[in-house]
């Protein structure tokens, strides 16, 4: 077990190193002279030289890479060129919106998607199943940001129940903060819930055809009892993998949906940085996203091993 944990963690660290190298290669080495790249062709040589000094660009590439890594370990992501603030501080501020939104959306999609998937599997081939799957088929096809626009139209503009956008900081009025996250999280959750319902249904239908369900029925259970006591837990194994992937997609989706609702999250920060060619900020923000995605995969793997005794032993 310990060997397994160590191996997974070593893999995680290696993956982060490789990702950091890719980001560094793209944003530090490919532009040639990052300082000139940031400032544009019309910048004065003095300004470029000053920025080069500030960014420490005269050091060899490997040294800069290691410095960047070392800085991040100590919480120093560098200074944003355009905002003149520490990147770490900017990201942490924005994560206070992005992270709760992602988690809220994840929870909603699980609470809605998983039970509906189970219901559809149990009613396989019956009208309820067909109706649910038509719904899910539609839900999967809806772009989350467009669904956000529709939700604003209905609930914010027509019914006036919730704000059209913007964000009240948590420390001022947390109920207000939550209210401004309701529509965005619903917009994010719809497609995810549809995917989850479909995956859950497929996994459970698969498990229902397996021998141990027949054994459970032979022991004296009805199909429903067998599904509840033996099927669902086994079916959750493949769903777990999807949940991990979904969290990664949700983080990306959040960044997009923030645009619809004018939320001051990571998304707006990044897209501004892209247009303003703020390499340092983009570098830090993408690295944070990659860490979140990779960590999610690690957690998924560990949970899987924890739930499935077969993996526990092989490790």
């Amino acid at each position, binding site marked *: 077990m310990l060997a397994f944990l160590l191996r997974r963690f070593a893999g995680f660290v290696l*993956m982060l190193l*490789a*990702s950091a190298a*890719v*980001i560094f290669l*793209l*944003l530090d080495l*490919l*532009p040639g002279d990052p300082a000139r790249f940031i400032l544009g062709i019309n910048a004065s040589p003095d300004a470029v030289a000053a920025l080069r000094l500030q960014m420490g660009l005269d050091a060899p590439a490997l040294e800069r890479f290691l410095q960047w890594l070392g800085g991040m370990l100590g919480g120093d992501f560098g200074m944003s060129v355009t905002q003149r603030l520490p990147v770490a501080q900017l990201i942490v501020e924005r994560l206070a919106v992005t992270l709760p939104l992602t988690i809220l959306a994840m929870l909603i999609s699980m609470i809605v998607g998983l039970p509906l998937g189970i219901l559809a599997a149990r009613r396989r081939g019956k009208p309820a199943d067909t109706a649910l799957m038509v719904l899910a*088929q*539609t839900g*999967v*096809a*809806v*772009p*989350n*940001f*467009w669904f956000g*626009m*529709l939700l*604003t*139209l209905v609930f914010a*503009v027509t019914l006036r129940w919730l704000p*059209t956008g913007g964000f009240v900081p948590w420390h001022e009025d947390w109920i207000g903060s939550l209210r401004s996250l309701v529509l965005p999280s619903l917009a994010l959750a719809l497609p995810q819930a549809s995917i989850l319902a479909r995956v859950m249904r497929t996994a459970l239908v698969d498990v229902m*055809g397996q021998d141990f369900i*027949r054994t459970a029925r032979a022991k004296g259970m009805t199909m429903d009892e067998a599904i509840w006591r033996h099927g669902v837990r086994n079916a959750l194994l493949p769903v777990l993998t999807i949940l991990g992937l979904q969290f*990664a*997609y949700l*983080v*990306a*989706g959040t*960044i*997009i949906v923030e*645009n*619809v609702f004018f939320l001051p999250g990571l*998304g707006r920060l*990044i*897209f501004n*940085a*892209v*247009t303003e*060619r703020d*390499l340092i900020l*983009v570098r830090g923000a*993408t690295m944070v*996203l*990659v860490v979140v*995605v*990779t960590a999610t*995969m690690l957690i998924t793997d560990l949970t899987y091993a924890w739930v499935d005794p077969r993996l526990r032993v092989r490790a």
Partner: protein
Amino acid sequence: MSWRHNPGLVGGLIAIIIFAALGLTSLWWTPYPIQAISVADRFQPLGPEHWLGTDHLGRDLLSMVMHGILTSLLVAASGVVIGIGVGVPMGLAAVAWGGWVEWLVLRLSDLAFAFPALIVAILIATLHGPGELNAIIAIGIFNIPVFARVARGGALAIATQDYVAAARLAGLGNAAIAARHLLPNIASLIIVQGTIQLSLGILAEAALSYVGIGTQAPETSLGLMLRDVQGVFLIHPWLSVLPGLTIVFLVIALNIAGDGLRDAIDPRLRRQGMNHGAG
């Protein structure tokens, strides 16, 4: 395989053909040129003049939707081509050679999984500015590990079959086995995954264009149309409903066709009902 037994596949395919035809037509002909801005004609309702109305710049919506469909399909399809072209050989090589090749393929696809399409698009957009090509590369890179895993998973199951061992006995090398035995037997899996990635690609293109790092004016795409109307859709909902619905229908058509295809191909599903029939 009877077409009549698979209404999903038939319906989905017909819808896709109609969409593709609309898109392709826009190459030669659209009711109005898509860049024709005419402030006098803005916010025209649906009518004989402009079948689907006009937007806030007076552009003809039907023309834009036609061209947008083409862009969406092209970007998504190019992404799938990149994904299949790189991912499938990777997956097959992992199985046929095994050992360190497999290790490398798995790590590479792990690495690619750590970069969702959006992050890749952000990185490229930072370097080269936004554009269609940007979206294609981002979606393509995103597709590579997906196809690599599907190809590897399918090929792993095939590789344990005795006929692969028989081919090795017959002196076939790894590459020949991958081409003669593995690839033909996983082709159906790849096609089914291809339709799934195509529909995901359309959604991804829309999202990237919507946040401004995908397709740029004067080109148009369904996602860009939604971005353009961001400021006015609360008053003129139709401007956002039309491109949004087009995306939804396009994706549904692809998904239904993909599901139908899978049912038609997957013998496990075809045999369902006879599962316990053995003996």
